[in-house]
């Protein structure tokens, strides 16, 4: 009886659901960035967390050290992130993948890129954590007994907008359909003479843009440091693989499930169990759904 009451107290606590929504949106956006890379280029870009970190970190540096306005610093951060993503594709991923050695070399290449971005950020902008400088935040307000922080509304709105735009772009535009076709079967696309390289480049740029917006907005909660990059990468990757890769909405579901685990495992079992809890949840989950909730369907 006591257990049931305690159980309900967690599930009916609006503050916890706000946390699920805020974290879920962030995880989902990172997952969406992964999804774009997977769709357009057919591989997992483990640099996503580093790109998100670099955008937020650079933006904060420009605001606090050089007095730029937040919107201007945000624009620079986003453009910088897109540039990093494009350079990664042109200078690293494309030459490595072009040799057709499978995913191993490309994986190691993006892993090395991840560490390079982390270390270069530390080298040029300092290793210490920085304050978040989101270009948009709202005044905190109350809903019933719960407090809604300054970054909740922006990240929800940005998530809704980016997912809708992504859906429209991939489903309704010619280039979007082309990108998905290329992701489905690159060889066939090449035979048909489709502009593979353009589509790949666009998917990298889109991933950079989404990761940057996610990082800059979420950093408004409690800052950003180069150390965040690896954790953000793993989180975004998990959001995507849990959701599955079958639809553009999958990362949203994956992010939500991951946020539920991150909020309610500590509430019911304690934060010290989170590491074990995530392994058990991941193992059980993948044992039943090895390709995520929305598995890609083979189009015949």
């Amino acid at each position, binding site marked *: 009886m006591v257990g049931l009451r305690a159980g309900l107290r967690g599930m009916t606590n609006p503050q916890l659901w706000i946390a699920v929504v805020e974290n879920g949106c962030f995880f989902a956006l990172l997952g969406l960035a992964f999804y774009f890379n997977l769709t357009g280029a057919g591989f997992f870009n483990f640099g996503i967390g580093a790109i998100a970190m670099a955008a937020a970190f650079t933006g904060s540096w420009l605001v606090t050290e050089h007095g730029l306005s937040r919107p201007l610093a945000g624009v620079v951060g986003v453009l910088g992130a897109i540039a990093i993503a494009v350079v990664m594709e042109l200078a690293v991923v494309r030459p490595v993948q072009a*040799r057709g050695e499978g995913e191993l070399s490309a994986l190691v290449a993006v892993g090395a890129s991840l560490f390079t971005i982390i270390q270069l950020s530390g080298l040029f902008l300092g290793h210490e954590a920085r304050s978040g400088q989101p270009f948009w935040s709202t005044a905190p307000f109350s809903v019933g007994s719960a407090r809604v922080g300054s970054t909740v509304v922006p990240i929800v709105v940005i998530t809704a907008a980016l997912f809708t735009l992504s859906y429209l772009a991939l489903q309704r535009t010619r280039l979007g359909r082309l990108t998905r076709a290329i992701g489905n079967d690159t060889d066939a696309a090449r035979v048909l003479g489709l502009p593979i390289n353009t589509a790949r480049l666009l998917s990298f740029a889109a991933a950079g843009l989404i990761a940057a917006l996610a990082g800059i907005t979420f950093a408004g909660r409690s800052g950003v440091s180069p150390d965040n990059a690896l954790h953000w990468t793993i989180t975004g990757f998990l959001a995507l*693989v849990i959701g599955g890769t079958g639809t553009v909405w999958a990362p949203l579901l994956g992010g939500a499930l991951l946020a539920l685990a991150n909020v309610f495992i500590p509430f019911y079992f304690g934060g010290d169990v989170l*590491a074990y809890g995530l392994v058990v949840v991941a*193992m059980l989950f993948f044992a039943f759904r090895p390709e995520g909730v929305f598995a890609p369907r083979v189009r015949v």
Partner: protein
Amino acid sequence: MSARLPNVAGVLGLVLLVVWAGSDLYRSSLLVTMLTYALVALGMYVPFVLAGSLSLSYSAYAATGAYAVAIGTAHAGWPLWLGMLVAPPVAAIIAVVLGAATMRLSGFYLGAVTLLFAEAFIQLLGNLGVTGGPSGIVGLPLLSFGGWEPSPQQTVLMAVVLTGVLALALDRLRRSPWGVVIRASREVPIAVDTAGVSVSVLNLVALGAGAAIASLGGALFTTYVGAVNPETFSVNVIFLAVFMPLIGGIGNPWGAVLGAAIVVHLTLNVDSLASSGTLLVSLSVLVILVLFPRGVLGFAGTAARGGTTLLTTVTKRGART
């Protein structure tokens, strides 16, 4: 490059390193760190490069080896070498159990789960009593075989022999019928299964063998340094172990050993206080992947063969001008 050449060059390189280290304690320490990384990378080579399975729990296997030595010595009063003998089977069992539990996963899905496992394993080591909790186990005695205590130089020599023998063995294994089958299972699993060989059993054997080799790396490090704690083999080691075969060249197990030597040189031996070892290593990986896809070994082979051609071309050009 002839098949024998890397083996000869590898053995020669190790001999040179032993001579270079001599009785210098700093150089011996460098060498032990390099051999530790090399053993972890060689362990990872089996499932990762041969079988194409992205199992990332290698920090956990290295830690298993380290703790087998430390717990055996500190709690059971074993000599250190007994722990080194116990470590490989224990690590292999853990790897096979984890491998069986994640049998249906492949590629990046397997990578995600095994990475989470590695992180949870570090947490577990810090929470248990027998592992000494977060402080780990310190103050282990020196290596001793029934009264004979080898000098640091002799310990390094034994570690070099162990690593060299394992690299040679893995090279033989790679070219043996078993190696051919497991490499085939990476490319065409269905064909191998149809031929009556169970791909899942092959994978489990590869995982177990790899974990056993990696555990020797952890055991070596703890034996030499006399201490271990939960953060000794962190997730960092996993990424280094993934990078090393690529740096050296994935065509041959010796690539992992060469990669370890380069990583240790860049992170510990280069006197660059302001810049970080991690940055140097990551940049080297990028340069090598983009420009020298077959790693340093592959490039050395090409260069050796191409040298004469290049020389001829240059001479001809010189003659023309």
